[in-house]
């Protein structure tokens, strides 16, 4: 590994660590600077002032905010201790671990669809720029990212699950999943995954298609493409190998940029499809005022985005030496 590469890795990782700390701090202060405190909303209104004070000191809420912040940060960063969930009466980390993998499954499938469909449609539009195909793809992608995802989810459920029962109506698996063989269980989960992942992925594919088209069109106007054409390379090879590789850098950045959108979308999709993931957990925890969990999931999704951006950055650095400077 060259020294510029190593320096690049270290710089980017340090920046990401700093961002994670900023994200953690923001989350803490959002929740704690808001009017009211957890004991007020959580507890029975019939509690006396004394009882409430006792509770506040038990949760450490009577200490100065700065002290609370430091001890919370210390517990989170050094011990991985996010506190105890009020509702689940278990460590928050345990609860989150249980809800994290359905979200990872959903967002990974969503990402695959987003980039599969988005890149395909974007490249097709760019290759036929100005043609009716191009106009159709541009309009369709604009409509895709203008649709409210909760509504598309409901309509998909209505049409493809109730009216024409191709897909199960939400949830992670069938009720009788426990009695199925391991392979059948996996197939069952994939069957349940298909519709929410399509709703999530196709909505995000709109933006990707548009961005890919524009980045690619810019590359296709460059001199080296004319050279490649002059060499007699096939158009397919020129677009997919030469131009797309150079358009890869902005598209990689797009991955980092769209990650927050994808996670927000996943929250809504999880609620609509009763998908037991982090979004659904956040939603339920807000309803039940389970602050430690809300704090953890909010911070965690922020950290996921930081990591996603870091990966995109590093891949960009690997692909393009100019980015390492």
């Amino acid at each position, binding site marked *: 590994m060259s020294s510029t590469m190593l320096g690049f890795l270290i710089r980017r990782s340090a920046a990401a660590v700093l*961002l994670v700390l900023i994200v953690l*701090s923001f989350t803490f202060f959002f929740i704690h600077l808001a009017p009211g405190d957890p004991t007020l909303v959580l507890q029975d209104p019939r509690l006396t002032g004394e009882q409430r004070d006792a509770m506040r000191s038990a949760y450490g809420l009577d200490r100065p905010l700065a002290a609370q912040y430091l001890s919370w940060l210390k517990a989170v960063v050094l011990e991985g201790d996010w506190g105890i969930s009020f509702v689940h009466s278990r460590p928050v980390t345990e609860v989150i671990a249980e809800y994290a993998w359905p979200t990872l499954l959903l967002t990974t499938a969503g990402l695959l669809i987003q980039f599969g469909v988005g890149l395909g449609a974007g490249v097709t539009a760019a290759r036929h720029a100005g043609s009716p195909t191009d106009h159709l793809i541009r309009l369709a992608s604009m409509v895709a990212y203008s649709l409210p995802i909760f509504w598309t989810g409901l309509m998909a459920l209505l049409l493809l699950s109730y009216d024409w029962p191709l897909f199960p109506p939400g949830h992670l698996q069938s009720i009788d999943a426990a009695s199925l063989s391991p392979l059948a269980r996996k197939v069952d989960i994939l069957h349940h995954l298909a519709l929410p992942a399509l709703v999530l992925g196709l909505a995000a594919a709109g933006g990707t298609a548009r961005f890919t088209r524009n980045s690619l069109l810019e590359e296709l106007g460059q001199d080296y493409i004319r050279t490649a054409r002059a060499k007699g390379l096939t158009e397919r090879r020129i677009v997919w190998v030469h131009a797309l590789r150079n358009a890869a850098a902005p598209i990689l950045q797009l991955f980092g940029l769209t990650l927050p959108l994808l996670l927000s979308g996943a929250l809504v999709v999880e609620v609509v499809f009763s998908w037991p993931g982090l979004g659904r957990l956040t939603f339920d925890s807000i309803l039940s005022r389970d602050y430690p969990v809300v704090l953890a999931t909010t911070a965690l999704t922020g950290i996921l985005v930081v990591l996603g951006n870091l990966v995109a950055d590093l891949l960009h650095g690997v692909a393009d030496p100019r980015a390492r400077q």
Partner: protein
Amino acid sequence: MIADRTHRIRLPRSPLSRLGLLIAAALSALAIGAPIFAPQAPYEQMDPVAGRFLPPFSSRVALPLQDGGWLLAESAEVTETGVVVRRLGQSETLPLDRFASVSEDNVSRRRIFLLGTDKYGRDIWSRILYGARVSLLIGLLAAGLSLTLGIAVGGAAALAGGWIDGLLMRFVDGLLMFPRLFLVLAITAMFEIDLLAVILVLGSTSWMAASRLVRAEILSLRERDFVVAARGVGLHPIRIFWRHLLPNALPPVLIDTTLRIGDLILIEAALSFLGFGVQPPIPSWGNMVADGASALTTAWWVAAFPGIAICLAVVAFNLLGDGLRDSLDPHTEEGFPC
């Protein structure tokens, strides 16, 4: 005045962006004129029993009752013994004195429920029009707030420079890492939610991109000759900002704000759908879809039509913003809407 107009916003020329402008104008007109265009008030339950879940294009005879309510019937006929009413699939004869007025005219005139009714018998078309007021107003005001905050933070960062610039931009970077819906939900969960709170929360979580844009524009404008000249003749920095920097930095930022309106309408809708935005019975397109979600299989129209209204509004503002951007500078790279 020493200034050069580097950008000028023109009316977009492409047919699609004109279509966007047209839809946006039509929706605004419908929202403003809701009391004229809506056949009913948004909360009016004409007949909670027989008016429930009427499918689109249903028509009913509406008879005014003595107690102020309405009775919806499939058909009605005035006879000597009373009014023969066909209602909920059954015929019954009701005495004349139950009605406030029964004339040949209001027995034969039928009321049309264009987009059907919801579970309380409220007219969906009317609620969509009144909901347009709420959804569009929130979108516009939140976009205005985000524009103001974006100018304040971006302007401060660009003008101050040094560590203040660094600090503000790290702050922006950090905020941009949160998926918006998680952030907005975590914040709204702490408040008593009313319309103002929704606007404040949405506006105060969506200014980051605008602030980056303002900062970048001002940093590039600052080195331009007319600004250097303005500094040279000894104008006060605040005056230079207001008279020379801001007016020239504004056009691209305003266009970004147009695109942001669609985005904010979508987030408001999602927030209201989840129950943390506009609270019922005030109609917003998002909470109307939520209303319909629980009756999806019995009455698809309750959820379907408000969703179409959201799509129309968002597509309109996106088309408009795109067209404005293209007319500002045909060569700008189209960015990703986020």
